[in-house]
């Protein structure tokens, strides 16, 4: 596939460029007297597949980046999920403002690989989805309020745009755009070195929007539960598990998602997350399992 080489190289260059610019932005803020990176290591979470700070599958109530009160933070990420028959590649960036507001963008490419041929769409047929996200911390502090049971609570949305509207319509799917709304509660139990997150997401999405939103017969918002648990082994290392409930609107069965992960942050500028994911059935293929690898750079 020769024509693929160039764009891929370009993307790598672009990603490198974004990462470099982010790090420069970080030091520029520092030079200008506006300090950065005032949060503790890993307390901004990693980046979820839709671009919001959190775990890998689900957004958390934390604001992404290492900016604390009076500071800004930001990061860029690239995530590759290689399941049995599909590949999801996601890249994006977010800014965290004053540890209060988070704005994010992510672009997802869902590659059907050989399944594309089987479905008559063509080898490597790809759905592309853009996700614009915003999150506001409402109350609480996940890290410092250790004598209170009140978690940090945030609300947010992820506005999604799928580029395969015509095909989705032909499959009986109602919309190629949709917005998920969520509320997340996150709490670090420092004495136990455990972090818990619970999220409720209101969504119409089929397979997170990769297969559009709603169907001709089912086009209502449904509340879905998501959860993460992380066990901190060292201040730069955490392991954990996640769960994401999913609606089942579509003729093709849709399963809940699970993962177990390990996240490592050698410095505040870099983190790497490796996970084993179970995505269940996706369209005509059961037992979609595989490796999730995510790299995040920022300040």
């Amino acid at each position: 596939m020769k024509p693929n080489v160039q764009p891929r190289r370009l993307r790598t260059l672009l990603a490198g460029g974004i990462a470099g610019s982010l790090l420069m932005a970080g030091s520029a803020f520092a030079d200008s007297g506006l300090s950065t990176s005032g949060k503790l290591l890993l307390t901004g979470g990693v980046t979820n597949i839709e671009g919001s700070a959190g775990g890998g599958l689900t957004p958390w109530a934390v604001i992404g980046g290492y900016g604390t009160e009076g500071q800004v933070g930001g990061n860029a990420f690239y995530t590759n999920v290689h399941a049995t028959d599909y590949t999801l590649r996601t890249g994006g960036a977010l800014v965290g403002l004053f540890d209060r507001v988070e704005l994010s963008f992510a672009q997802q490419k869902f590659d059907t690989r050989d399944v594309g041929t089987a479905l008559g769409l063509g080898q490597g047929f790809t759905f592309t989805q853009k996700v614009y996200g915003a999150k506001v911390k409402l109350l609480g502090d996940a890290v410092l309020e250790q004598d209170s049971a009140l978690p940090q609570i945030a609300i947010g949305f992820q506005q999604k745009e799928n580029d395969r509207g015509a095909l989705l319509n032909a499959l009986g799917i109602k919309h190629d755009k949709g917005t998920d709304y969520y509320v997340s509660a996150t709490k670090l139990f420092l004495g136990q070195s455990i972090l818990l997150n619970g999220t409720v997401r209101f969504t119409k999405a089929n397979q997170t929007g990769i297969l559009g939103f709603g169907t001709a017969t089912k086009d209502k918002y449904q509340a879905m539960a998501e959860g993460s648990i992380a066990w901190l082994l060292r201040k730069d290392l955490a392991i954990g598990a996640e769960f994401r409930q999913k609606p089942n609107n579509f003729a093709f069965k849709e399963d809940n998602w699970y993962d177990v992960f390990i996240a490592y942050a050698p410095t505040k500028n870099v983190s790497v997350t490796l996970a084993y994911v179970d995505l269940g059935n996706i369209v005509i293929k059961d037992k979609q399992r595989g490796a999730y690898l995510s790299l995040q750079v920022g300040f």
Partner: protein
Amino acid sequence: MLRKLSFVLAACGIAIGGAAITANAVAQEGTRISDEPALFQAFGEKAGLARIMDDFMVNLLADPRTRTFFEKADQKRIKEQLVDQFCYILNGPCEYKGAKMKPMHSELGITRENFNALVEQLQFAMDKNNVPFRAQNKLLAVLAPMHRDIVTK
């Protein structure tokens, strides 16, 4: 099994989210951790705490985010008070007779960034003195809420 466990996890997380329980009125000089008999030993007892505080003060003076609050202060006295305070929190044979947290910090204009930087430097000092991560977190869990009396800006 995994599925059931995950549901329970999600439910736990959400239950926590739903329960808006207000902060306990804990003495801000620190609660004593009485259910962890080996904790004081994990810090090397009083001599270990003294070594940690020596390293901690070196770190605080080297970090531009914390230096200004300590360079002109009576460092020896601060270290002694911190040893006593931490010794007390860790259920060691000490009483904390130092000043109250709130009046002591009210005029300093300490930001959240300064506070977190101090926590980082304490972590480095505890790492250097081989305090196990879980033991460090037990102490930090008691110290963290003090941000309410220390951070004023």
